């Protein structure tokens, strides 16, 4: 009985114990916060790395001719494991704004040139190929009833619909009128001669260049002349239909979406598509076997070249970014090792405080031994002090850490305002917010780790206390 009673009494009678408790609290809270942010960063990084790659990516080898995407789409969509698929045409380009000195941007070699963009041609208005009931319901949420014979594949296979529905945040960003019909030009541009093709611009690019809906942009790109093989510059005027926001800086800063057929026109019909994106019903279960099956079946049909070039043309998005994902995972392991040192520091705090306490309480130990306490009882007494420290510290730390992780954005803003320093510069990261994901298993692991660490470090001074000669302890002044 005396163990719990006296340990509890010592805990609050000696303020140094509270320092230990606060040490554990801070360590646990910091660990949870950092690990949650790290997990959030990794998840977001994976998302960014994945970009619009969907689950599986088919990139046929470079054909001299420009084959249509339909045979490839037909071949893949029949597979029951595929939820949706779409063809995409990705190309680089340069934009210029009429009447403005946009070429000035090219004179700065140090900063990212806002006029170099990535053009993404997608299908959103062709024949319906596949609509899953869940997809239909999702689409219904954005635009009421789904039009018949409408292709949902682009939306199903990519996150484009979510990006279109994202709330534009910039001072002049303008969401598209309807996410289901993103490339409809503003009313002022309809019925005035030949309609210009419409584009949807990332909201950061939209803001940066002070665009407005209805503005005409000239897009120029370079293609290879199919006859001579020489590079030639093509350009075309487009009308800005609105902006989208994915929340990922890189995409929102550089991407321009437009109908695949319009982009193909810009390329002079030299390319119909560059890749086919597949969204699977269950990525974890189906990705590996499906990729293997597709490599075989598509090669048999002559739609891809198979493995003869060494690099497969059918890959999961993870295989596509193998090196980068490997680096991220490596970083995660390194981070976990480094972070575990925080627990060791907390353990050392307990060790120092308890060692001090054993020295301070030598006479008490002698008294307790004289009154009949066993060495084991003394050991337990000091271990219990560490136990209470760890229990209260970890519980409070877990609460504080979880709360801080869930509210990290407002906390960061408040701190930035208070100190006049921008703690998280949203321009230099890939995200416009601090991502944080609290994983209950990680929290549990940290709490258990802190507990074990505290008890492990407490064992040494507790053992020392138990071994004290009662007479020496009694004589201690």
């Amino acid at each position, binding site marked *: 009985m005396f163990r719990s009673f006296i340990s509890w009494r*010592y805990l609050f*009678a000696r303020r140094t114990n509270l320092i230990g408790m606060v040490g554990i609290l801070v360590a646990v809270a910091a660990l949870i916060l950092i690990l949650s942010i790290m997990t959030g960063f990794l998840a977001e990084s994976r998302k960014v790395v994945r970009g619009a790659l969907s689950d599986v990516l088919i990139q046929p080898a470079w054909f001299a001719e420009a084959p249509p995407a339909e045979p490839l789409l037909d071949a893949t969509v029949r597979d029951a494991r595929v939820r949706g698929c779409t063809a995409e045409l990705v190309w680089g380009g340069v934009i210029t704004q009429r009447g403005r000195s946009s070429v000035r941007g090219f004179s700065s070699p140090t900063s990212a040139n806002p006029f170099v963009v990535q053009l993404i041609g997608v299908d959103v208005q062709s024949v319906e190929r596949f609509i899953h009931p869940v997809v239909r319901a999702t689409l219904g949420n954005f635009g009421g009833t789904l039009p018949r014979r409408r292709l949902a594949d682009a939306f199903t296979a990519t996150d484009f619909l979510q990006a279109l529905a994202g709330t534009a945040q910039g001072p002049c960003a303008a969401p598209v009128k309807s996410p289901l019909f993103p490339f409809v030009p503003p009313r002022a541009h309809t019925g005035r001669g030949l309609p210009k093709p419409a584009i949807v611009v990332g909201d950061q690019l939209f803001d940066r260049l002070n665009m407005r809906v209805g503005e005409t942009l000239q897009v120029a790109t370079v293609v290879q002349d199919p006859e001579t093989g020489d590079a030639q510059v093509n350009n075309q005027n487009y009308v800005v239909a609105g902006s989208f926001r994915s929340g990922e800086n890189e995409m929102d800063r550089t991407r321009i979406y437009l109908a695949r057929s319009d982009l193909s026109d810009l390329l002079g019909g030299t390319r119909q598509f560059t890749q086919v994106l597949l969204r699977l019903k269950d990525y974890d279960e189906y990705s590996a076997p499906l990729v293997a099956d597709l490599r075989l079946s598509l090669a048999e049909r002559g739609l891809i070249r198979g493995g003869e070039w060494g690099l497969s043309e059918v890959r999961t998005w993870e295989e596509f970014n193998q090196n980068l994902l490997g680096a991220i995972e490596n970083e995660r392991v390194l981070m976990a090792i480094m972070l575990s040192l925080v627990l060791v520091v907390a353990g050392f705090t307990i060790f120092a405080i308890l060692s001090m306490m054993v020295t301070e309480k030598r006479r008490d130990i002698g*008294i*307790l031994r*004289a*009154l*009949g306490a066993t*060495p084991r009882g003394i050991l337990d007494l000091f271990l219990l002090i560490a136990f209470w420290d760890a229990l209260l510290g970890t519980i409070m730390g877990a609460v504080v850490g979880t709360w801080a992780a869930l509210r990290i954005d407002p906390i960061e803003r408040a701190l930035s305002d208070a100190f006049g320093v921008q703690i998280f510069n949203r321009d230099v990261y890939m995200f416009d917010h601090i991502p944080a994901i609290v994983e209950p298993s990680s929290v549990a692991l940290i709490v258990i780790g802190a507990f074990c660490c505290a008890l492990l470090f407490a064992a040494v001074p507790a053992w020392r206390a138990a071994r004290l000669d009662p*007479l020496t302890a009694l004589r201690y002044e």
Partner: protein
Amino acid sequence: MSSTITSAHGSDTAGEALRGGAPTPATDPVLRAHQVRRSFSMGSRSLEILHGIDLTLHAGELVALVGASGAGKSTLLHILGVLDRPDDGKLEVGGRDVWSLSTNERARLRNLEIGFVFQFYHLLPELNAVENTLLPAMIELSWLEYQRAKKKLRARAVDMLVHFGLADRLEHRPGELSGGERQRVAMARALLQNPKILLADEPTGNLDSSTGETVLELLFEEQRRRQLAMILVTHDSRLADRCGRVLMMEDGIVQADSAHPVPD
């Protein structure tokens, strides 16, 4: 030293009752030490403090242990209290050889059979008077056992403290008590488990004479009432005079043992 013994013998005017009763050889001894030796190493050489002490103590016996500083009184008291292990010899408490017991059994023996009263009280500063008194019971019992017996134990501790004149000091911590009050709390703690043996190491050595007298009266009264075998280490010859038996120690041996009542 010899004057102390003479004085102890010569001033035995209060009679048997006041001296804590005569030894009762008919009963089994509660404590027996046989040829107890203890030495301490001082660097490379060994310094022998006790040179083969023999001592038998019966229930109800009040023994004064006197001698000059360094004579080995405290060392002997610690060995008799099972706090220190002799290098040689045997110590029996209640007929059991204590050093053949396990560490836990020895601890239990200290808890139940032996009460200590120290010169410097040795109370835990974080605990109040009642809690300090209850400490031996807390050490003895498990959490569950203690919770079950808590009311009864507390009532017993409070009764003892009230009997010792501490009715209005029950919730006070040692830092808020005077020296005499602290020593009375220490006495209540020593007596809580109804031990058979009480070892007091200069219990009034840190008190003024008036307070010391009050504490002693209470101590002797409890010794008589409970028929405790008590050893009192003291420098005070007048105090030794009031004990039924006086052991005079010198250079690690018992020079004189007034094992028999001294005639007036």
